[in-house]
């Protein structure tokens, strides 16, 4: 069975070769395809380009991506001639990755993270191309995006690019070690961490000053992942970062579903040396000290503390230290301390799951409290957590909880 599929893939490549002469599959060396496979894993191409929810084929696209501007559907990146990249040349593919321009000259929406991939050198992008061309083509049409005017006109992206984008290749910093440069390249290039972890402006472009200081998307806060002084993960060691990316758990947290997708599909398969490079780089990113926060009233602390002790302490421990590797410590947590409390509120309302990985197959979950605690109780609890055990973040209001609850119920 397997063999026939490979032959099928190869002949599809050959058909294309007759007309536009890209590399045909049989010319590809194993190491080149393997290199492309690894890079596609680092970039987690399958994450967006597979419609997991509807049991879509891998890389055949169709996944709905919510953006602040409307829904967009990821394209099919298998080498199907009609609906995928089958007719694309290496140059076409490079232009898409490097400049965000499709084969027909149209502009791709920057939900496709070409502003990151532009840092990748040509050989690496060619390797991804070769890898994708080796996969069985799948016929799968991509739905049109649901953008309002004028965003539904792809030319609008041209203006966006003028303002926010410049194709550029990664330039190593000679002052820094090879590992640091490798880490930075991975973070800013193929792994495109900033796509979630850097806050965006009104147009959806990275805000430079907010680099890896956390960003909100789909009512989740991708937390601050700067590892230097005052950073969101200042209290994580390099080993902690590697353990988290490799196995989804460390002494400080377990990976929740959104990032869990990245760990499960991508980082758990990355080479440890690359994860170490990422850790080395992140640990050098200092952050500004935050302004001190006003201590909440005695009444709120008493109420929040009582709610905490009754509902949370059995797992997270009465002093917020949790059970490392199992129940997240809340003392020092970058989600509890985040300026924007949305992730912690969401976790309290909906519960969450530490996503199982190859190294940690057990599903550890936190139950939902939306049915048990009122908005005011959750606000008091959150405020208590954000002002206890060395945590320091602004108080949460009942209204914030109510708004989020309403949005989540929609």
């Amino acid at each position, binding site marked *: 069975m397997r063999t026939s599929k490979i032959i099928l893939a190869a002949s599809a490549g050959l058909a294309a070769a007759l007309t536009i002469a890209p590399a045909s599959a049989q010319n590809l060396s194993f190491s080149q395809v393997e290199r492309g496979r690894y890079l596609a894993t680092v970039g987690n191409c399958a994450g967006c380009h597979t419609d997991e929810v509807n049991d879509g084929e891998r890389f055949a696209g169709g996944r709905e991506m919510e953006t602040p501007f409307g829904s967009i559907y990821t394209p099919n990146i298998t080498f199907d001639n009609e609906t995928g990249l089958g007719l694309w040349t290496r140059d076409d593919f490079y232009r898409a990755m490097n400049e965000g321009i499709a084969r027909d000259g149209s502009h791709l929406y920057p939900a496709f993270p070409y502003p990151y991939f532009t840092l990748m050198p040509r050989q690496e992008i060619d390797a991804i191309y070769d890898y994708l061309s080796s996969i069985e083509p799948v016929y799968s049409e991509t739905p049109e995006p649901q953008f309002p005017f004028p965003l539904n006109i792809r030319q609008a992206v041209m203006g966006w690019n003028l303002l926010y984008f410049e194709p550029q290749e990664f330039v190593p910093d000679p002052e820094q070690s090879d590992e640091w440069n490798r880490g930075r390249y991975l973070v800013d290039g193929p792994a495109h961490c900033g796509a979630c972890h850097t806050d965006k402006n009104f147009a959806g472009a990275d805000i430079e000053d907010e680099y890896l200081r956390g960003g909100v998307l789909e009512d989740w806060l991708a937390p601050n992942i700067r590892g230097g002084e005052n950073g969101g993960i200042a209290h994580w060691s390099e080993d902690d970062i590697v353990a988290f990316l490799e196995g989804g*758990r460390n002494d400080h947290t377990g990976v929740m579903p959104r990032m869990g997708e990245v760990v499960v599909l991508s980082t758990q398969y990355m080479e440890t040396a690359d994860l170490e490079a990422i850790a080395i780089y992140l640990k050098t990113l200092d952050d500004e000290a935050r302004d001190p926060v006003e201590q909440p009233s005695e009444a709120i602390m008493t109420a929040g503390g009582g709610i905490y002790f009754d509902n949370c302490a059995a797992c997270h421990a009465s002093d917020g230290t949790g059970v490392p590797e199992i129940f997240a410590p809340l003392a020092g947590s970058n989600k509890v301390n985040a300026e924007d409390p949305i992730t912690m509120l969401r976790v309290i309302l909906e519960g969450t799951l530490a996503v199982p990985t190859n190294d940690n197959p057990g599903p550890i979950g936190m*139950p939902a409290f939306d049915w048990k605690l009122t908005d005011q109780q959750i606000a008091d609890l959150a405020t208590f957590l954000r002002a206890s055990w060395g945590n320091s973040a602004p108080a949460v209001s009942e209204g914030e909880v109510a708004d989020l609850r309403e949005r989540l119920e929609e």
Partner: protein
Amino acid sequence: MDRPDLAPNTRETRVEKLPSVDVVIIGFGWTGSIMAQQMLEAGLNVVAIERGGWRDTPTDFAPTMAPDELRYYWRHEMFQETARETLTFRNNISQTALPMRKWGSFLPGSGVGGAGVHWNGQTFRFLPSDFVAKTHNEERYGPLPTGMTVQDYGVTYDELEPHFDTFEKLCGISGKAGNINGEIVEGGNPFEGWRSSEYPNPPMEMTFTQHRFEEAARGMGLNPFPGPSANMSRAYTNQHGISLAPCTYCGFCEKFGCGNYSKASPQTTIIPVVMRNPNFTLRTNSEVLHINKHPDGTRATGVTYIDADGRTFEQPAEIVIVAAYQLQSTRLMLLSGIGQPYDPRSGEGVVGKNYTYQVMSSINVFYDEEYTNNFVGAGALGMIVDDYNGDNFDHSGLGFIGGAYIGAWTTNARPIESHPVPEGVPEWGSEWKRSVRQNFLKTASISVHGASMAYRQNYLDLDPTYTDHWGRPLMRMTYDFTVNDRRLTNHITPIAEEIARGMGGREVKVNSREGAYDSVPYQTTHNTGGTIMGQNPSESVVNRYLQSWDCHNVFVMGAGAFPQNAGYNPTDTVAALAYFSADAIRNQYLQNPGPMVQA
């Protein structure tokens, strides 16, 4: 039939034949999940068929709702529904058995994880002499009495030791070894069989009750040790990379799922790795009707089951593993016609033979001033003495064999279930309420966990009258305590009473086990026998590898294999036998499918 939904013949009669698989497993509790993991590791593809539903910690036993006494203790949510299927009971063959319409004496589980979800977690190994009960006792005390049908297991403790070790590491058992490779270790059970290593976790934190018990027992020259516990004394990660969290001593173990990942269950130790395996399929809410035999009678061809929509399927398989609860496994063998049914009159036949139970008694201690605070409890939080278990003491002249452990467990102070009052207090009314208030935080309990020896008259068969919701005959249980049980409990309960009197309370209350076996009050869910293992087909259903003597590709797991019951909780031994069987399947049977022991 004015209730068409209950009519047995309403289901579709068409049987859809599914593609064949390597292994089909009936039941997905402890042994089902262990065998699934083992068979998958051997590279086989496996289908497990579970009559109950899917259940998991984050979705079904969240700490926000797990400790619900009304739902789980009183309304029996974890247990088999008697309206669909139950068993009939009688004390002896002169009576007519009647269906049990509400569970009492024991609580058969249902659903993914089986009874492994709602157990307490008391995880003992049987003694080396328990596996050779007949040979050992006859050598020491002469021939067994007439009517006692005690047998050797056909497998020895030494052979099982590595498999006990595997299961205890799977679960992260908290305890203190008493015998490591033959060296007696201070603080553990000096009578236990040798262990190749210390327990994976240290003992649990003991409370007032255990301290008092330990002191009193030592004062009598006994050897107290911490109860081996599947409740975690600290965070633990097992050999499959699955983590368990430290126990919070909330006191909601037995009859409940653990919300804190602190009790080893199939869900918290092994099911996650099984579910991740692409060669595994689980079919829930699907009930196996019978195992299908090949016309030549030497092997099974698979199983027939009904799904939740009433559709009937045939699932062909190369290997059939029966991993339902003991009662259900015995019944499936009878319904499938594998092995000769046991006849108590002639003593011929084997399936249903040697049903045994356990003889339980207890003593309550009541204090005036001291608080025992039993709400700080856990299913397997206790101190134990084993001086009167198995053959750890001289039975000469006592007229019985076997024994009991005496344990001071602090399992709970769940208010609907647990409110012991002293002797002489009325069972209801204001006086009862006053006494509950006075004693609720000031009582301790000692239990006596007695062995049960097999006798010719105690057995299981199919009921001639009553049927289940599919129209199949119910299991019929014929059981009463035996002379061995009575002498055993009458000898050991007073010793427990003496310990209790040494614990410094105001008064004690002895709850001895008297009269005929009564299926109503809860005693223990340690039903054993019915598919017993042994050395030859004339006196056992399965051989030492749990392989059917009749159909060589049928393997029957569970406590049904015990030829008689020991004075311990059975789970550790059940699991060790499963691992031993899996090892034999992987290393012998797959190379050369056929009987692994020549009859």
